């Protein structure tokens, strides 16, 4: 009885989560006319199916390709920089006693709690003046500053878990502080580093507000913003099936990234270091 309940619960939750995704995929395989005429039902009716046509159209679209490239580039750079800075900062916070440590941590949290919308206006003005408007760095910088706090908190928790003796042992074994950090601490903090990386990448990839406000052309516009500007042949008739195909394509990179990073997130990596 209990098993059955669990199974039913799982199915309900899966439906709740995956139905919109399934629907988007279904839409992406219907032809434009079928949608305009109204085409209820999950599977395309006879003659309504578009096959892979929507996908080839989307991928052939210069605007879309450019947006994908922008999104991947901006998200990866923001993730990389954010993780590097967060690793160093978190290590300092976990290991060193310095004045203003509390201040740094609270400020980091405070920044993370700031509503994005309230910052967009000032940023728009600032970026226009400085010349960062509609450039990659113009998006990378806000992404980094919004993801760093979370990354620092996650990573410093991981660093605190690593026994300090390991680092001291490495130093006695002949390592410099930097070598001890690189060869012992970072490999052990890898699960934390990848967790932080995934979170940062998600934020950057999914962001819409910054993407649409701080860009004006294809030179930096990321995918979520680009999709909202996406128009087909008829400007008064939004190409719903094309948009659906675009949405599906834009989720593929994030699935790949998660699959790659997920393998690295192995819990209990430090077990066996010290007698516990």
């Amino acid at each position, binding site marked *: 009885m209990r098993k059955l309940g669990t199974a039913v619960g799982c199915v309900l939750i899966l439906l709740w989560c995956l139905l919109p995704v399934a629907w988007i995929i279904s839409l992406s395989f219907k032809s434009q006319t079928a949608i305009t005429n109204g085409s209820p039902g999950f599977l395309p009716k006879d003659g309504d199916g578009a096959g892979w046509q929507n996908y080839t159209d989307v991928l052939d679209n210069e605007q879309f390709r450019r947006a994908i490239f922008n999104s991947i580039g901006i998200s990866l750079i923001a993730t990389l920089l954010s993780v590097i800075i967060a690793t160093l900062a978190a290590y300092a916070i976990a290991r060193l006693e310095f004045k203003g440590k509390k201040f740094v941590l609270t400020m980091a949290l405070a920044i993370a709690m700031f509503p994005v919308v309230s910052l967009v206006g000032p940023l728009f003005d600032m970026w226009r003046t400085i010349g960062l408007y509609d450039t990659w760095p113009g998006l990378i910088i806000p992404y980094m500053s919004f993801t760093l706090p979370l990354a620092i908190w996650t990573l410093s928790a991981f660093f605190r878990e690593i*026994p300090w003796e390991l680092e001291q042992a490495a130093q*006695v074994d002949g390592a410099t502080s930097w070598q001890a950090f690189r060869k012992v601490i970072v490999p*052990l903090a890898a699960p934390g580093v990848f967790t932080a990386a995934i979170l940062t990448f998600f934020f950057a990839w999914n962001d819409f507000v910054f993407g649409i406000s701080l860009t004006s052309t294809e030179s930096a516009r990321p995918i979520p913003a680009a999709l909202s500007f996406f128009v087909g042949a008829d400007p008064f008739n939004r190409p719903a099936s094309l948009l659906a195909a675009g949405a599906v394509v834009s989720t593929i990179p994030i699935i790949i990234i998660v699959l790659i990073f997920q393998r690295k997130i192995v819990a209990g990596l430090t077990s066996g*270091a010290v007698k516990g």
Partner: protein
Amino acid sequence: MAAIDMKNIVKKYGDGFPAVNDVSIDVADGEFMILVGPSGCGKSTLLRMIVGLEDITSGDMMIGDRRVNDLAPKERNLAMVFQNYALYPHLTVYENIAFPLRLAKADSKTVDEKVRAASKTLELDEHLDRKPANLSGGQRQRVAMGRAIVRDADAFLFDEPLSNLDAKLRGQMRSEIARLQKKLGITTVYVTHDQTEAMTLGDRVAVLKRGILQQLASPRELYTNPGNLFVAGFIGSPPMNFLPATVEGNIVELPFGKVEIPADKAAKVAGRGLLIAGIRPEAFEDASVVDQTRQGSTFRAKIDQVEWLGNTAYAYIPFEAPPEVLEQLQQLERDLDGETLRTQLVVSLDGSSKVAEDDDAEIWVDTSQMHLFDPATGENLTIDLERAGRVPALEQGHDPAQQAKAEHEVADQQTAAAESADG
């Protein structure tokens, strides 16, 4: 290989609290030196200062003929085994042992040769490809030692390496460490709070209390000629008995009656008034099983409790102590991390003794093994300085009363700190 010479080492923390206070210890080349003491005595801090993980406030740390005070750990060429082993969990046993060699940029052939040699010595051959998480406690301990012996370090440092093992394994690893050290002939400093390890492993033992070196001597010298009450109470199990005593002529009055002591001991304490007599449990015996020709005195006492262990039996005899002695004994008990429940005499009797609980037994005591201590300073008045190694408190220019005062101040500070932390 090198000698380690510590000269007037002081370690003060930010609040001015001296964790290690003016300690001088010379470890000869190839010697096995033990640092022992109750928790908080500064022994681990001292070891970490040797290896360079802790800054030295003042004094000189000499390794060989180099002053290493300002050198980083990697420049000191010492190998250390940590209490919790500190193995690198992401590396295999092989790579754990090879780690110091890789850092030294040794070529892979040399690395392989040395790692295999070390793993052979420590019987780790079949575990080389495993990760530390899959090893037992004793195996991890051996890997930690492998990482130490694989380099040509100037000295080995051990920080309570056996305290995480169970009793049986501890005994095996203890003899393993002793064998290895003899074989390699390498200078070794070993920190422990376990007096069995201290007595069995060390060429010499340094006893520390609250950051101050109490005595530096061979295990035998420490046992037979303790420099003060603290060393006397710390070394030996069951511990030495401390009884209030007054000396008149050659006669010592103990709570159980009067016994006679050798004239040379009596001469050293003449006219001192109330003293503390220290007698080890094995200096006593059931008078009925003692060979009548042996020198010594006897007294009668009511036995409170007997623990019979087969080869030996421990009998407990409670007694009343005057307040000035009681206070000193309670302080001593605190120093030794213990708590006095009651003042009682522990005597070790022969296994064949028939003494039972509530008996009024006649006990024989070998008074030539008795020591007499000053109740105010704890100093051993009957010490044979020729056979006591180094007792810093009794050296020229040192005033035992001064030292006792300094120690009490430290104790007060500790208590105050603990109280303020509680509040």
